[in-house]
Structure formats: structure tokens, C-alpha cells
């Protein structure tokens, strides 16, 4: 394992058992994974492979049964206590935008700043800039219900970026969107990633999305969830949607699809 202080995220022997009413379920077998600072890593796998569990453990929403997680050099769980300083290095985006319906778009984006006690004028100014960044300028005064699914998800990304975390964790962020919006959001995410230089870990079950976005794809197999293969994606940036027509892209996608069928 490399020096954890130099990596964005370092997982060592991370394992998860769920204790349900019946037998304990082995959600994730011992997992080692290093994510470099500024890297875009995609966790790909069939349902039940533990990819969401893994992401939620990195984000500190679930405690691992065993193993250690280091986030920008900080140990996430110390003596069973979650280290808030490590959590503050990460922003999370979920499959649903999860905006609060009683806050306007600008207030939603600024919510993390409000919780940190930033003065109102300052945080609304920051929300304005973030709307610009994610492409929803001028929608700050609207209620979430007045926006389309894609725009709500943009606002959720802006909220996660608001406190300038080192790392962005995204759990099937575009899974609920239609195919065209999804393509547009993939392009947007690449742009935002290049503009901000964040470390991104993204969960998806779409092979195309994985190959299009990732520097590295981590393929997980189910029952119990474990890392099957790790694939480097050598495509130049910025990638355009047409990259999907390139032989390299297609060969990689086919290879991943075959492997997914074998392990599912």
C-alpha cells in the first residue's frame, strides 16, 4: 500500500457484514483500493455487488465491519467514532437529488455553508457562482419542484461542491435521468471535474457511462461483493460523446460486458 497521506482515498481490508433477522449477509469482502488525488474512479458492477455499500462506507454513512479507510490521510473511523474532519473532505451526490423542498435552489446549494456558519450574503454569493459552474444560473429563486430532474441533479452537485471538498462521491447520480439528459450530464461532469480538479468516485451500472468518465474502472462481482478487475481507460481528455464510436472504446465496453455477464 502506498503512503495514505499522499492518496485521496485509501482502503485497506474494508469488509462489511449486515446482521439481519436471518443469517448475516456478507455485503463486501475484504477490499483494498487506493484512489489518487484528482483521479476519476468508477465503481461498476451488477446489482448486489456492494458498490453502493462501498461508496457509503467511504462517505462515512456506514461503518465497515473491519478494515480501515483513510481520506486525504485522515483515518475515517477511530475507536468506532466517525471523524468529522475526514467527512468534511467529501461531498456526496445521490441517485435522487435529495434537495430540501422547503428551500429554494440557492438556499439548497448554500445549506452546507449555512451549517458551517458562513454569513448569509457570503454564502448566497457562493451559491450564485456554483449555479454558474453547474449550468443553472438564474434558477436560484425557484423551488426544487419547479426544476427538471437533470437540473435538480446539477443543483445537488453544486451543493456537494459548495464547501469545496477534496473528494466527490457520486452514487448512480444520473441513474434516474433519461438517456439524452444522462449523456449531457456526463459531459458536464467531465467539465466540472476538469474545472475543479476534484477526486471523484462514481458508482454506476452503465458500462458506457463508466468507460466515458473513468480514468480507472473498478469492476465488482457479487455475493459477496469484491473487486474483480481494475481497468485503466486510456482515452484523451476532454472526451466528446463521439468517443463512443472509437474502436478502443467499443472493445473495452465489450470486454467489460462479457466479464459482467460471467460474474453476474
Amino acid at each position, binding site marked *: 500500500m502506498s503512503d495514505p497521506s499522499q492518496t485521496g482515498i485509501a482502503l485497506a481490508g474494508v469488509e462489511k457484514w449486515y446482521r439481519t433477522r436471518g443469517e448475516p449477509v456478507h455485503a463486501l469482502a475484504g477490499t483494498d483500493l487506493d484512489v489518487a488525488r484528482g483521479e476519476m474512479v468508477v465503481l461498476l458492477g451488477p446489482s448486489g455487488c456492494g458498490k453502493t455499500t462501498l461508496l457509503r462506507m467511504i*462517505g*462515512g*454513512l456506514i461503518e465497515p465491519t473491519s478494515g480501515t479507510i483513510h481520506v486525504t490521510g485522515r483515518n475515517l473511523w477511530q475507536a468506532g467514532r466517525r471523524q*468529522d474532519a475526514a*467527512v*468534511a473532505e*467529501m*461531498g*456526496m451526490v*445521490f441517485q*435522487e437529488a*435529495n434537495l*430540501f*423542498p*422547503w*428551500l429554494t435552489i440557492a438556499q439548497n446549494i448554500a*445549506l*452546507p455553508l*449555512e*451549517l458551517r456558519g458562513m454569513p448569509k450574503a457570503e454564502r448566497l454569493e457562493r451559491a450564485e457562482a456554483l449555479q454558474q459552474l453547474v449550468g443553472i444560473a438564474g434558477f436560484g429563486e425557484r*423551488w426544487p*419542484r419547479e426544476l427538471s430532474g437533470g437540473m435538480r441533479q446539477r443543483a445537488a452537485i453544486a*451543493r456537494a461542491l459548495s464547501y469545496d471538498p477534496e473528494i466527490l462521491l457520486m452514487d448512480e447520480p444520473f441513474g434516474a435521468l433519461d438517456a439524452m439528459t444522462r449523456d449531457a450530464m456526463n459531459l458536464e461532469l467531465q467539465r466540472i471535474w476538469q474545472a475543479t480538479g476534484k477526486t471523484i468516485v462514481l458508482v454506476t451500472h452503465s458500462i458506457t457511462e463508466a468507460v466515458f468518465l473513468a480514468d480507472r474502472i473498478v469492476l465488482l462481482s457479487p455475493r459477496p461483493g469484491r473487486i474483480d478487475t481494475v481497468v485503466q481507460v486510456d482515452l484523451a481528455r476532454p472526451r466528446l460523446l463521439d468517443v463512443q464510436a472509437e474502436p478502443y472504446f467499443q472493445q473495452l465496453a465489450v470486454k467489460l460486458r462479457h466479464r459482467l455477464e460471467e460474474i453476474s
Partner: protein
Amino acid sequence: MNKPWLPWVTTPLLLAVFFVVWGVYVHVAQVNAFILPSPMSVFSAWADVIKDPRAWHHTAVTVGETLAGFCIAVFIGVGGGVVLGRARWLEATLNPFVVGLQVVPKVALIPLFIVWFGFGPTSKIIVSAVIAFFPILSNTLLGVKSVHAGHKDVMVSLNASRWAVFRRLELPNALPYILTGMEVGVVLALIGAIVGEFLGGNQGLGYLLVAKMNAYETDMLFAVIMHMTVVGFIFYFSIGFLRRVLIPWHESMEHR
């Protein structure tokens, strides 16, 4: 619905039809005015009620009792709902008693309250509060408990404190539920005050109603009922107004 003006036309129209049918029936069937007075005589009796300062005193008494009882019910109902919603063990412990309290026919307690608190307004305020309390409590409880799991995840990923989760998530989430409870509760509070006045004391619209019944003035009886109905409407729509001010973000406020 894309015709927001529709009820403004149909409501007066249907009311007019109702009163015309009533008037025609009374006239054609030669109904005794003691059993069912004509709408005209009811309206003129209502005009007398409106002109009578004593009637306004009775109105003020009932409104005052209702408001006082309602405010107590909101205070205890919202407070209790929030506490029970956050402490599940306490809810499990107290649930049988809360249900028991709801099942007791609360109007049956009125004689007891009169024994304890006398014939003055206090006993009516208590009746009013006791009747209005339950829907506010149960709706608040439901609201605090029905927080979307995804919203909780957001707060956890933001290191939010317990207080911040309450202030920024649970309370606003419960607000539409609380207002629904208040909408039901305010009407029940009025009923509580009126029924309380039936049984004891010498003021309030409930007392006025009983007095008119004992005097065999059926048209006045109808007039007082109408008067009470208007008061009830004003209470009900005040909560609707509060809804517009407090939760403009809610789905129920769409297309308004």
C-alpha cells in the same frame, strides 16, 4: 385544476339554488314556521343577531375560548408530537395512553371539567383544548417521523448536529402535517367551546343557541347556527392563509 375561478362561480350559485328550493318547499308544503322557517325569516333573524351587541358579546366569548383552547392544543400537540417523534421508546411507552385518550368520548368529560373549573370560560377552554389536541399531536408525530431517508443521508454526509437536523430537516418536513392537524383542530376547538357552553354558564354562542331553543324561536336558532358556521369558516380559512405564508414550497400550493 386549471380553472381556479370555478368555485367562485359555482359556490354562490349552488347556495342560491339551495335557498330557493328551501323557500319554495316551505311555501308549497305549508311547513309550520316552528319546524322549518323560511329562508327569508332566517336571514332577517340573522340580521337581528348581527345588529344585537349582546350577540357580539357572545360571539367574542366563544371566539376567545376557541382561540385560547386552540393555542393550548397547538402548543402541547406540536411539542408532544416532536418529543414523541424523536424518542421512539417514549412513543412506544405512551402510545396506549395516547390512543386511550383519543378513544374516550371527550364531550363526556365536560361535566367533569365544569365540576373542576366552574361555569366560567376556563372549563370551555379546557374542553376546546382537549378536543383539538389529538389531531395536532398525531399529525405532528407523523410529520416528524416521515422524514425521507435520502434527506437524512444528506444531513449525515454534511456532519449536521442533532439540533441542525431538527431545525433544518425534521421541523420543516413536519410543517405541512402540523398545518393539516391545525386545520382539523381549529374546527374541533370551536365545537368544544360551543358544546361546553351548552352545558354550563350564561354566555357564548352555545348558550345563545340553547336560550333560543328554550324560547321556541326557531328562526333565531337557524340564524345562530349560520352565525356559528361563519365563525367556523373564518377559523378554517385563517389556517389556510397560514398555509400559504408558511409552506409556499409545498405541492399543495401548486397552481395558486
